[in-house]
């Protein structure tokens, strides 16, 4: 009998321990998720009720040119950031790893510093650097390209520019992960390889690269998911323009919901974004796991 009351008391204590998280989770995560799905089947405004219209929002989405433009721009942005930032971070980390002592700490700190800045600080600084009239980078453009470039008003330049600024801002994080990964590789492996007369390239190819692969895969995954969710930098630097050339899915959700007051339609787009990111996450997770088992 005492055993049973004890057990019951233990469960009660456990419930009280998990309650704060579970209640918050249900309120600000689970409930909004369910409500988002329900809302996507209605024509509701942002605040207020609407009518059930079935799959109408999704049908409309399939014929919405802006939706496909956004989808394409999301893909383009992923292409411009994920692999380039990973490659750049690997190169920087390999170099930093060969430095010693205070110099190593200093170089790492300088590369990491932008990562801890708020996004709006980053965009303010770069919009000033790239200002068409007075930007410090414009003379560089002029010497390479023949003239100054209004990067945020030019449909060809805007996405690469936003991508470059994003890489500058977040690259330090990836460098750090690579350095952690490099430090986890036992030094004996290199000593053994060098006794066997391996060249530096062979060491990288046969030791560093395979042992670093889990970290590389982690970074690629994190970056892919992060860059699919791009909003802040695009909104702050180009507002999706010019001619929708930097319009992305999350920006579309924002504009439909908060500026055009289409709660239902915005939810439908959000559902698509939600599903895309979940699918990518699960695929990546499976991929990483199968890679790990091999």
């Amino acid at each position: 009998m005492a055993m049973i009351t004890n057990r019951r008391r233990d469960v009660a204590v456990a419930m009280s321990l998990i309650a704060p998280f579970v209640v918050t989770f249900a309120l600000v995560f689970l409930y909004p998720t369910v409500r988002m799905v329900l809302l996507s089947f209605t024509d509701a405004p942002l605040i207020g009720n609407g009518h059930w219209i079935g799959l109408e929002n999704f049908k409309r989405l399939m014929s919405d040119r802006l939706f496909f433009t956004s989808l394409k721009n999301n893909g383009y942005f992923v292409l411009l950031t994920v692999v380039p930032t990973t490659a750049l971070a690997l190169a920087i980390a390999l170099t930093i790893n060969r430095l010693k002592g205070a110099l190593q700490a200093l170089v790492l700190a300088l590369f990491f510093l932008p990562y801890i800045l708020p996004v709006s600080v980053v965009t303010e600084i770069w919009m000033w650097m790239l200002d068409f009239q007075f930007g410090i980078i414009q003379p560089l453009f002029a010497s390479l390209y023949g003239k100054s470039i209004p990067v945020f008003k030019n449909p060809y330049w805007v996405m690469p520019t936003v991508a470059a600024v994003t890489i500058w801002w977040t690259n330090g994080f990836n460098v750090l992960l690579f350095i952690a990964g490099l430090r986890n590789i036992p030094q004996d492996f290199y000593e053994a390889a060098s006794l066997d007369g391996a060249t530096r390239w062979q060491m990288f190819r046969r030791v560093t690269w395979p042992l670093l692969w889990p970290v590389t895969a982690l970074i690629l995954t994190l970056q892919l998911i992060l860059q699919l969710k791009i909003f802040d930098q695009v909104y702050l630097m180009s507002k999706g323009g010019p001619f929708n050339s930097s319009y992305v899915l999350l920006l579309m959700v924002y504009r439909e919901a908060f500026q055009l007051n289409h709660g239902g339609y915005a939810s439908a787009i959000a559902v698509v974004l939600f599903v895309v990111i979940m699918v990518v996450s699960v695929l990546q997770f499976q991929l990483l796991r199968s890679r790990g088992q091999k």
Partner: protein
Amino acid sequence: MMQIRKLENSILAGGSLLAAVLWTFPLYWAFITSIRTEDRVVSDAAGLIPDEFNLTAYASALFNTKLLTWYWNSIATSVIITVVVLVSGMMCAYAISQMRFPGRKLLYGVVLASFMVPSQALIVTQFILMNDMGLINTWAGIILPQLIVPVVIIVYKQFFDAVPKEMREAVVLDGGGDYTLLFRVYLPLNWGITTALAIITFIMAWNQFFWPFLVVTTENMMTIPVGITQVNDAFGVYYARLMAVALLGAMPVAVFYLIFQKKVTEAVMISSGVKG
């Protein structure tokens, strides 16, 4: 051979230092701009070397904008988020790691799964929820959706799992319950990881732009990252002032990072699971 090696190393050292300095050039340029007069900023004479030390832009940033209010909003909300996330996270992690109760596996599964859920996709209905609860333009409205940080639970669980079972016995023999165990044994044994998680949560909350930008519409309730974008609209093209505001906004976390560099980098590594 040794000679070549030495030369190579100094080229490597010099080259990487140069690259790192160039990498932070935008910050240097922002600073140089901020200590110039507006006229000089846009004149041809504005070179790469600081030639003026004029604090007008900073005075204007501090006294003509709501910067101090935004600091206060940012500090208060970030501190509350950090404390709540850590305390609720360690409690939940302790229960998952050390106790047996129905639904334990399911709960941990949900925590792991929510790691993948893009919270940005929930903005519409989170906003509606905050509106229903009357929390638009309040600290609570800024804070609530930021309280779900699954990585805190995941990391705490790993560390609690590794605590030797013998550590429990003394407390249990004294008649101490699970709350005593958590706050007297498991937490003190894991202060290192607690500081790391606190640093990461705080920086994340401090830098958060998207959600506060949606839930706050009055200048008095804005946080630093949202507030500084307002200055842009108010000032137009006064770049010295813009840069002064941006640098002041970035300063608290940047200074903290430069002082506790090692701790911060360690925290980033731990919370992303590369080191633990």
